[in-house]
């Protein structure tokens, strides 16, 4: 069973290619880790939406000199 930290980095695309390749090999044979990855993917989806950029007013800029 791999650590939640390592699986979190995997789900976040934060592992180096070699690290990711090695972990994928582990996931092929570990049902428990695959379940954790599924939950981490849902967690990631939630955080992506919760921490998305706010809708903000555009800044007031000087007039375009070319128009």
């Amino acid at each position, binding site marked *: 069973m791999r650590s939640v930290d390592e699986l979190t980095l995997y789900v976040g695309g934060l592992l180096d290619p070699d690290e990711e390749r090695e972990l994928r090999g582990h996931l092929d044979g570990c049902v428990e880790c695959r379940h954790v990855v599924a939950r981490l993917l849902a967690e990631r989806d939630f955080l992506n939406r919760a921490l998305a950029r706010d809708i*903000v007013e555009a800044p007031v800029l000087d007039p375009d000199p070319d128009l």
Partner: protein
Amino acid sequence: MRQVNLLRLDSDEELVRRIREGDRGSERVLILRLYPGVYTLALRLLRQPESARDAVQEAFFRAFNRLAQYDGVHRFSAWVFKILINLIRDAARRGGRVVTMELKPDDWPSRGPIPVDAAIRAESAERVRREVEKLPERMRAAILLHFQEGFNGREVGYSLGVSHDAARLLISRAMAKLRQGMGSDE
């Protein structure tokens, strides 16, 4: 009048190339494109709209004034965020005040009845934003650059002025703290 090609969006880096050749119009496009993300991050770090606006204005000013220092290797937005974060950190060292922004019920848009599951999700999203606000500054910046801006580990590290490994560590520690704050069973 200059012809505008509506079907092709120039990359940030292409716009930077034109700005270096003196194209002020591209500077405007780039500011308008990057402003939402830069302002959102500034607001989430400073928690005060006026301070955030000032910091963003200064960050863009420095970014374009010091364009010769932009290496062209990393995303231009990562460089703007790097300048912004350094600005905020320097202000904090000089004793800049951080004011907590409290959300009042009036801040929620009025849309009539909200389905229960959407209300629960909205409340959870607000809770996680509050937990993010409690994180130490560098962890908070790391988690926001990663989720809000979609930066990978190297880009987060570049913007924070730390190594790739240090950036990954900040993100995973921040996630652990968020889970703890949200009452996770992990």
